[in-house]
């Protein structure tokens, strides 16, 4: 799965924000969702996103 195109749209949208987020988090969230596409994967996907955000350094 080529995520670059989706990621590019997210990056562009992020850059327009007053306080953009770290682009790596966008990539990480997208990768988690792509690896967990099914309805029954939602719980695991949310755990991973929660974990990823929790590990982020907050400014």
């Amino acid at each position: 799965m080529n995520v670059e195109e989706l990621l590019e749209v997210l990056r562009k949208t992020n850059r327009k924000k007053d306080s953009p987020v770290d682009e790596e988090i966008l990539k990480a969230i997208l990768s988690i969702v792509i690896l967990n596409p099914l309805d029954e994967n939602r719980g695991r996907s949310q755990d991973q996103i929660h974990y990823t955000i929790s590990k982020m350094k907050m400014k």
Partner: protein
Amino acid sequence: MRITQIRVHNFGPFYGGHQLDFSSDENGVYIVHGNTGQGKTSLLRAILWGLYGKALDHNGKEIPPTSLLNRSAFAKCNLAFSVMIFFRQEGREWVLTRKTSSSAHTDKRYSSGMECYLVKDGQPIADTPEKVRFEIERILPFDVSRFFFFDGEMLVKYEELLDQDSHSMRIMRDSIEHILGIPYLKTARDDLYEVKKRMERDVAKLVKGLGGKNYIDLAEDYQTLCEEIERKRETVKNLQQQENSLGENIADKKRALTRIKSVEENALRRKEIDGEIQRLQLLSDAQKTKLMNLNSQLYKTVLSRIADGLITKLRIKHDSYWKKYLKKQELTNRKKDLEQGMKKQKCELCGTILNPTKLKELESELAKIRIAIEELTEIPEPNLIYDTSAKYLETMKSNLTRASEYKEIDSITVKIEYEIARQKALLKQVEQQLINVDEQEPFRLETQIQNGIQEIGRLQGEQSSLGKQLVDDLSLQSELDQRLASINKEELNILSKRIDCVKCLLEIFEEAIHVYRDEKRKEVEKEACEIFRSLRLKEEFSKLSINENFGLSIITKNGTILNKAEWRSAGEEQIVALSLVGALNKCAKTKAPVFMDAPFGRLDIPHGQRILSFLPNMAEQVVVFVTDREYRKEDAAYLKDKIICEYSLKHESEENGSSITKCVE
């Protein structure tokens, strides 16, 4: 994804094991020939069953496993069937095996007896249907498979994308969004929302843990507010779902009403057709009477050949008899004069006394006249029968039946009979549609539609009210957020920052969905236009235009938008749908082969040829299932050198089922 081989065993019409090879590394087209009932559609179903464990019929309904088992296998109590798909994905060799066996011929037993394995580069990676589904959904999701494995005849269903209310339109639109990758952004947004809820609960828990009445009250207020916001969001979501479902329901009822109204029109139409048939029947009867009259005079035509001779003979006879008649008259007058003269013994003319010699001469003359009169006794009194008959025959000749009259009546009769047959066929169609029509149904439907519209209004009002309440709640939540942020506890601060971050991420993903969808729509429209231009024959069709639901409309050179199915022919509809499928394949995140059944069923030969020329551009690997009517030997020229291999499907017998053979040039 590139399929390299398909093996079927006891599946559909295929008894025992059969296989199709697509192992060439070349890009191009595989052609599978087979007339109706040989197994083309079954092969397509076998692929879908192999990949997803379900095969669908033409109405999108799942075919039960008991109907998938080959009949001969069933007759021999061999209750097992399987499909193996060999494919290449991201440079790896994969083998997917799906088989089912049962001790009893029931759907439940087959479903519970299903086994599934997935092997990647010789290593097993999934051994249950659930695990296999997970892997296959990542490679080629079921929702998007419709753009790769499809029946050409079903392409017309894409016109539903032009329908704003249809439920199937939404399913189709979602599938298109899926193939373009939009659901990944949507899923990420929904997951982020759930993460935010989880973090908000953590905040409340943390604040509560700080102790003290103020903190506990603040935490409880915060938690209650968050729960309230969540409850309202859920309610709004449910109301929206209710509104959507009601909208679909109303749309269905409107369609039913339209159908019924067309039935009412049909009732009027039936009356009109009945009247027309009666009128035509009268015309036909008049022509038949004319024909009978002509037939009754037909003997004259037969007689006309001998009439000329008869007329001549009759004239001769008449003349001869007339002469004799005049002669007899002359002799009778002479006889009368002689008899009177002899009786008075003097000449009747000059009064001279007749001497015996003269009397003797006169007697002799009288005797001769009597004999001559005697000879003419067969001549009747003035006899005109021969003259009358001749005249009758002459009149008859001038009134002979002409072949052109027959031809004219025949031509009119054929036209009338054809029109009667046409009207009767129409009448039959109309009557079919009038069977089981409930006269009260339109009234009921209209009432239900009105009630539904009122209910939608109520739901919208409720949503609007909840929306306003949500705005207030969010404003209150923002105030509470500020109060929470003012608590000088590091852990709480970090958590609040994380929630802010998630909120920001939510906004980014939400906006990205709209941006990406718009970009993709434009891209699909551009690609579809190019394909459409290469396929269409009508020069007045200028381009295609895409709507919010990815439905395509034809734009003419004059700028007229043809966006309703009834304005386009089924063939044109198929060309537009193929343009869409081709464009989606080009723009898709997923790459896979295209397997197409009956691709030219609704097309004329020139359009079929254009699509043949286009097929190699649809995907790297294209497999078409065709009948001999759709694809003829000479059509190979349109595929140029892009044909990789051809197969033929043949139904051998009821016992042996269908077989697959490779065509040798």
